[in-house]
């Protein structure tokens, strides 16, 4: 049985729903010896800023149960170096590139997007309004409806590229935040960035991470991410969604699709097994064939919920 793996996310068409998440895949090229970059649905590159960024002082990472904390602080080579040194090779090998962008201010975000301009080698822009590991910008935009609305609207006006907004799970009402982003012009959403966490060295009583808190990722956060994808899908039936948070295998991919994601991004698992993302599309086709699913898009948002009945008191 031939399975159709392609997905249409607004104007963005992917050959399959397996993408890789920003911050876990470098600029893509580092993985060229471990998988076929052109066979991935898309690659969201390390968050790009207007100027190169040194990131936070170490220690930046620590392992936790079924996951890890990080506070890298968005270290990157800057958008100009990316366009000059990385994008030509990514384009030559026919990778589908999502440019993840961030800034301290609205002007910074707009500046990065303007540098990318109408460059067709970039398939989409992903707005990072959800990094918890910087003192300015990042999550501060994503957790404030007014700031988010203003930022998305300005970036929307500054680019003709498909615009994805990557949201933070560190909010009470993910649906409310998602609505603000979509109403302000987002074409798609990425759900979710890392959860803010803290790990402590008992001997020194110091945080294990130099930034004190870090972003939790890995299988530990998957149920939270799946729940948020489901909530947003219920509220916004049409919006294209990238689901992410602890994708480790094909079953996890299918779970996100059923919850309502059109595609997934593989994140922290890329560190553990740099070949993994390259295997998942094939395994997804096999899973679909074995379950009589002709088109992968037929899985999206097919969660069968039971009505919540209240029988607590007789």
């Amino acid at each position, binding site marked *: 049985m031939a399975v159709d793996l392609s997905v249409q996310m607004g104007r963005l068409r992917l050959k399959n729903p397996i993408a890789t998440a920003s911050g876990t895949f470098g600029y893509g090229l*580092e993985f060229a010896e471990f998988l076929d970059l052109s066979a991935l649905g898309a690659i969201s590159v390390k968050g790009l800023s207007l100027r190169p960024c040194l990131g936070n002082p170490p220690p930046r990472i*620590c*392992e936790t149960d079924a996951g890890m904390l990080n506070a890298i602080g968005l270290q990157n080579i800057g958008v100009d170096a990316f366009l000059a040194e990385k994008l030509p090779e990514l384009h030559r090998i026919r990778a589908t590139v999502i440019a993840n962008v961030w800034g301290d201010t609205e002007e910074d975000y707009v500046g990065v997007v303007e540098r990318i301009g109408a460059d067709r080698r970039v398939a989409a822009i992903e707005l990072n309004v959800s990094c918890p590991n910087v003192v300015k910008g990042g999550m501060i935009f994503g957790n404030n409806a007014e700031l988010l609305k203003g930022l998305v609207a300005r970036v929307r006006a500054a680019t003709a590229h498909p615009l994805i907004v990557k949201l933070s799970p560190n909010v009470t009402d993910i649906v409310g935040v998602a609505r603000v982003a979509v109403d302000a012009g987002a074409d798609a959403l990425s759900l979710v960035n890392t959860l803010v966490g803290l790990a402590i060295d008992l001997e020194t009583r110091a945080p294990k991470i130099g930034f004190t808190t870090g972003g939790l990722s890995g299988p530990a956060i998957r149920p939270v991410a799946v729940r948020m994808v489901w909530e947003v899908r219920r509220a916004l039936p049409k919006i294209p969604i990238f689901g992410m948070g602890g994708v480790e295998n094909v079953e996890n991919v299918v779970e996100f699709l059923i919850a309502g994601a059109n595609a997934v991004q593989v994140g922290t698992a890329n560190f553990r097994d740099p070949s993994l993302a390259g295997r998942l599309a094939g395994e997804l086709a096999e899973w679909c064939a074995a379950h009589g699913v002709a088109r992968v898009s037929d899985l999206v948002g097919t969660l069968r919920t039971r009505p919540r009945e209240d029988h607590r008191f007789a």
Partner: protein
Amino acid sequence: MAVNETLRVLRTLHYDAAHYSLFLQAGTIGAATRPGHFAMLQAGDGLRPYLRRAFSIADVTTVAGVPALEFVVKVQGVGTGALGRLPEGAPVPVLGPLGVPFPTDDLGPSDRVALVAGGIGLAPLVLLARTLAARGLAADLYYGGRNENDVLKRADFERFLGPHRCRYATDDGSLGRRGLVTDVLAQALDGGTSYRRVFACGPLPMFRTLAALLERKGLDASFAMESEMACGFGVCLGCVAPTSDGRFATICKEGPCVPPSFIDWKRI
């Protein structure tokens, strides 16, 4: 060129409760390994420990005639504990060889070098000792630990380098000189001994002392640095160290073997 492959456990040799050598099939990694390279090893089912662990490839050798990679491991936590309990034949996902190895290509047969190890920092120096010996270079070993049990694989070092070239120091005096290995080296240097290059691996305090000593003596050196890593190939940016030119450099990609002048010792 790194390879992501699954290699089977050939043998585990426990020295004491805290130290062991893990021998894996050499796979295609073995032939590509040079002294100072490291590999990322997955222990367990991928939940606990979640990430692979970085280890120096201590030696490329054989176990009962089968080509093998040797990793010398100190039990420190979940990952090092789990790896030591793997039975013979267990599959271990391995990514390697990784990083910048020790610079040795420019050394000639008349060059004399020193190897300085602290505790588990012997790991990258075993293959280096084997390689230098095979090339006929004279190498002196300075190896320190808290006590005799911390000073591992002495027989191998003495076989490769010659027993008269191996000097030990322990905190409690149970082996060699009582005191720090850097003091033993300093004494040799003060006595007129000189080296074309000093190769070292050990804990941060040893590196600090050694960096200052070697700078004072004007000696060239390469340090195999250690850092907690998530990926091992330059993408997580978690293992960085502050550099003397004001950056944060990945130990996995720009290292692990770097000249001491590369590191900002005041900020690390």
